[in-house]
């Protein structure tokens, strides 16, 4: 028994009922970086297998949504997009919005859809949501490609559009968006393990959120037409991201430094809260899922 005390302290690790209050354990994630890479590769490769149109499916959805929005909101409802062709205006909003939804819905199902593998083997669970956010970048890249094609098309048609120099910061904007989607997704995925209700909520919640995120209208228009309810959109960090993306890509609307600062703070907050709950859940979710 005496020898025990002398050797008690050099344990490599300890498995205990609860995680420390906050443990991201970046070192461990780094050890598993190859797994992250392989998950991303798997997600990308398996999507194309046994489809005829392959990655073309990524293009069909934003194109048709943009066409529908243009008909409904611009032609029928008469939303004014200024000098920018309404189709391009909508396509820009939808492309950016799609990346957010893909990240959110993808990560919000992390625990449930991976229950069988999480139940058998341990690796840092956060690898899975991170890999989803990264592999969605490819889809986003393809959709950006189609945007560029239409951008050039309208440009050579003589439409009055131009890039804003701040477009160089566009990748930063996308990273902020990915992190926001990841944080929110981790938060929801943790709740889904116990209360499946959130799974239903996410489906139409994302739909509703889109209307509050200035995807198919300029923020200024809402302030002008519905000053009473415009706070709904003004408190939504996503609205600033989309508004800013359009500002960068099409040079329309306005950029609000205050709004962007607010967005950044919310993103950081959501990410850490999401991470905290995710960490707490990953320890024993397998018993409740």
């Amino acid at each position, binding site marked *: 028994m005496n020898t025990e005390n002398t050797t008690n302290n050099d344990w490599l690790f300890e498995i205990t009922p609860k995680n420390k209050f906050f443990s991201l354990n970046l070192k461990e994630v780094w050890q598993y970086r190859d797994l992250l890479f392989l998950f991303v590769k798997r997600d990308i490769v398996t999507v194309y297998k046994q489809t005829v149109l392959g990655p073309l499916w990524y293009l069909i959805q934003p194109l048709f949504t943009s066409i529908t929005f243009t008909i409904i909101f611009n032609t029928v409802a008469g939303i004014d997009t200024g000098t920018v062709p309404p189709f391009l205006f909508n396509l820009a909003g939808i492309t950016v919005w799609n990346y957010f939804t893909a990240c959110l819905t993808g990560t919000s199902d992390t625990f449930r859809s991976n229950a069988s593998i999480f139940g058998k*083997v341990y690796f840092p669970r956060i690898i899975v949501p991170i890999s989803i956010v990264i592999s969605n970048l490819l889809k986003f890249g393809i959709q950006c490609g189609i945007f560029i094609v239409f951008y050039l098309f309208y440009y050579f048609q003589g439409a009055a559009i131009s890039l804003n120099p701040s477009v160089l910061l566009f990748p930063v904007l996308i990273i902020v968006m990915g992190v926001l989607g990841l944080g929110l997704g981790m938060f929801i995925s943790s709740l889904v393990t116990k209360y499946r209700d959130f799974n239903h909520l996410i489906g139409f919640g994302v739909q509703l959120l889109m209307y509050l995120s200035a995807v198919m209208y300029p923020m200024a228009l809402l302030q002008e037409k519905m000053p009473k309810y415009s706070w709904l959109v003004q408190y939504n960090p996503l609205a600033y991201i989309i508004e800013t993306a359009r500002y960068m890509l099409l040079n329309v609307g306005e950029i609000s430094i205050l709004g962007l600062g607010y967005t950044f703070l919310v993103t950081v907050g959501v990410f850490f809260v999401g991470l905290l709950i995710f960490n707490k859940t990953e320890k024993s979710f397998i018993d409740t899922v």
Partner: protein
Amino acid sequence: MKDIILKAENISKQYRLGTVGTGTLSHDLNRWWHQVRGKEDPYLKIGDTNDRSTKGTSEYVWALQDINFEVERGEVLGIIGKNGAGKSTLLKILSKVTAPTTGSIKSRGRIASLLEVGTGFNPELTGKENIFLNGAILGMTKKEIASKLDEIVEFSGCERYIDTPVKRYSSGMTVRLAFAVAAFLEPEILVIDEVLAVGDAEFQKKAIGKMQDISREGGRTVLFVSHDLSAISTLTKKTIVLSNGKIVAFEETDKAISFYSSMHSLSNIFMQKYLVQKPTVTKVEILTSEGGTLQGCNNPFTVNFEITMPDVEIENMALSFQILNHLQVPILYDYIFDIHTKICRIKGVNYLSFTYDKLSLYKGNYSIMVHLAETKTKTKFQEFNCCSFEVEMIGMKEPEWGWQKNVCQYLDEGGWKI
């Protein structure tokens, strides 16, 4: 000084029975309310021991309770127990899949677990791609896998299919490939759960051999859970016996196995309740030569059965029994079928008896496996293990070197010619 690589202290795991969902919110709120006031979790105090067959009073059960053990570096430890004894829960806690409710595990080495081979295999990916993916899931780096790729492919014996998607593989091939990946893992501690129950005989032999190499040459620590007692006895030196979530024995494998085999029933009489409207073996009794559970070699041995039949007459009943050795391997078998001799035609209690005039089982521990069935519709009513007994070489001339253990299971008469 002992080199302890893994130490479990007071591990307990509580589960909630019934459907999770209804009422969880109220329990969560109650738990949270206690936590806020700095009080103990109210649901940790309650909970029944985990006996699957009895009706409990509480919604909460302890799947594991106060588990304490230490494993030395390079040791191969077996874990045995009946279904639901808590084996898999223990492995899940060891492999960090789920956290214990109380207690802690301390480790001086990386733990890799093989609770199921082929975890994370993606059917769309090729064999090679899956080797990388599966290896990475199990904790290997890409470099490590790449350096062992040829060995893995060779060990799996799936060379021809290595660039084919795994969905085209036969199930046996998938298992071979998956085990091959796992076999080349190099953690300090390897946790294995009955992965050997798959694959053909040739591959099983290969797998067991590989596991022996891992522990002997690699000096690695292995924790091995299995129902296959002969695999346990060839691979491990020490074994933990779990029963209803508690450690009931932690000894040398031989002793642990004989303890486990005698756990079914320590008496020579086995009784169970009549399952209403279902033919039931309500009593099994063995009459040994020495009385109790001790049987002498080359002596008579009788098994008495009491079968309770329902009100409706059932024809074509069949009763059979096996005598199993300590590794649960059947040694002797006998049966009686209604189609040959009418049995169990009385509504109510029927008696049957079987006698060996001279039972020449070799010294060791044995038990009776009873099967009750109906041959026409091929319904199996009951199958259970009971009445453990010990055979000693009583009254026989002992060789100079004594009666060695496990040299054989059965003796027969015969003579040498020189």
